[in-house]
């Protein structure tokens, strides 16, 4: 009954219905499973999921804002999932990516949702993956996942995307920092933002050489794009690069492969989320000597020895 109501809200593109559905997923509410089981799969299949990652201050949100404008001018409905880290101390978070996108606040065909990582072992990927499906079911044909490219869980989220763009900017450290920050090897598109600033050309050269090292066929190599997001420069070229990668992934079957991997990743994520409390309970009840190799103790605990 209640899930019917929310599903109707999704079909009608009701802003509150969409928002509430994502909250139910975030709160691990059992209703979320009902909703996710009844979504329109064809819409989810058709939507393009674009991951945008990179170090803080590279210009991800400003770039996202410009990309939204371009897709809107093509008449496409756009969803954005903006992920920011939770404080490991308080569990709270400041979700500030929206500031750069407020120009779209009154556009009913731009749905922005901020999500905090909530310090989960698993679960974050799954929550973001569910949000992607919900947004697609509400008619978004482009869904952008924006996240800081540091840390395992953030990289896992990006693996949910059909196409991944890594945003870098000059002045944020040398190319070694860039490699640490964003793992260029998983990116389909390398964006050098703030291209009007000193050091942009050197950074672009470094990125070109990383793209070349990727090997493989010419068309599979990462594309390097230069942008000045704050002035809207280079966005047309970026969209063209996205288009090219998408077409190539569809043709080669890479898109299907990534979707399948992403689904498995979400399942793994949920499984980890479910199993963790069981193990914690075991450890709490377990009368053990705190001596010796912890890995062996863990194996004993799981009955693997």
């Amino acid at each position, binding site marked *: 009954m209640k899930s019917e109501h929310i599903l109707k809200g999704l079909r009608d593109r009701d802003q509150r219905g969409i928002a509430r559905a994502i909250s139910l997923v975030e709160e691990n509410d059992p209703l979320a499973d009902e909703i996710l089981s009844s979504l329109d799969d064809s819409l989810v299949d058709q939507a393009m999921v674009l991951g945008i990652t990179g170090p803080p201050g590279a210009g991800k949100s400003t770039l996202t804002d410009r990309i939204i404008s371009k897709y809107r001018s093509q008449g496409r409905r756009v969803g954005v999932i903006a992920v920011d880290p939770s404080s490991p101390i308080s569990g709270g978070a400041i979700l500030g990516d929206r500031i750069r996108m407020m120009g779209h606040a009154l556009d009913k065909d731009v749905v*922005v949702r901020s999500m905090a990582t909530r310090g989960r072992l698993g679960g974050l990927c799954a929550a973001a993956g569910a949000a992607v499906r919900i947004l697609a079911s509400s008619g978004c044909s482009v869904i952008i996942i924006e996240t800081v490219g540091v840390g395992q869980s953030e990289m896992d989220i990006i693996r949910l995307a059909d196409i991944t763009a890594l945003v870098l900017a000059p002045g944020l450290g040398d190319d070694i920092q860039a490699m640490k920050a964003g793992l260029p090897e998983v990116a389909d598109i390398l964006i050098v933002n703030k291209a009007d600033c000193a050091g942009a050309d050197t950074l672009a050269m470094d990125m070109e050489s990383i793209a070349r090292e990727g090997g493989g066929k010419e068309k599979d190599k990462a594309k390097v794009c230069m942008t000045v997001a704050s002035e809207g420069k280079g966005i047309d070229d970026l969209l063209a690069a996205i288009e090219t990668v998408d077409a190539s992934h569809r043709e080669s079957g890479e898109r299907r492969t990534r979707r399948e991997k992403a689904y498995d990743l979400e399942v793994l994520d949920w499984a980890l989320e479910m199993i963790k409390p069981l193990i914690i309970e075991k450890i709490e009840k377990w009368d053990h000597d705190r001596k010796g190799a912890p890995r062996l103790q863990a194996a004993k605990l799981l009955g693997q020895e």
Partner: protein
Amino acid sequence: MPEQKRTHRVLIGKPGLDGHDRGAKFIARALRDAGFEVVYTGIRRTPEEIAAAAVQEDVSAVGLSSLSGAHLRLFPAVVQALKNAGAGDIPVLGGGIIPDEDIGPLKDAGINAVFTPGTPVTQIIAAFRSACETQEAGRT
């Protein structure tokens, strides 16, 4: 259903032309440190933009800051914008440089709580927590 402690989501924003955001940022940090997820929408927003963001983010409360004297017009305008967006159940709390004599009219206009420079931060956090809990209990 296992009743886990729910993470409260709130929006902190500044309606109108006043660009002084120290207060808003201070409250945003204090709420984060108290375990809230704070969607921060920045300065110079219209009441309609704030309401639209509050709906999309599914927040349980909206906090507004004003240091320029326009609170009597802008705070109630956000309450009205939320009603127009079908989200009249989301409480609005406000703070800033607000003379005592304005507190009554603001509350009459539907502002859930009003904070002035002397309000202790613990009291502000408690007010947000209570407003969130009431809103969340009323969700259907």
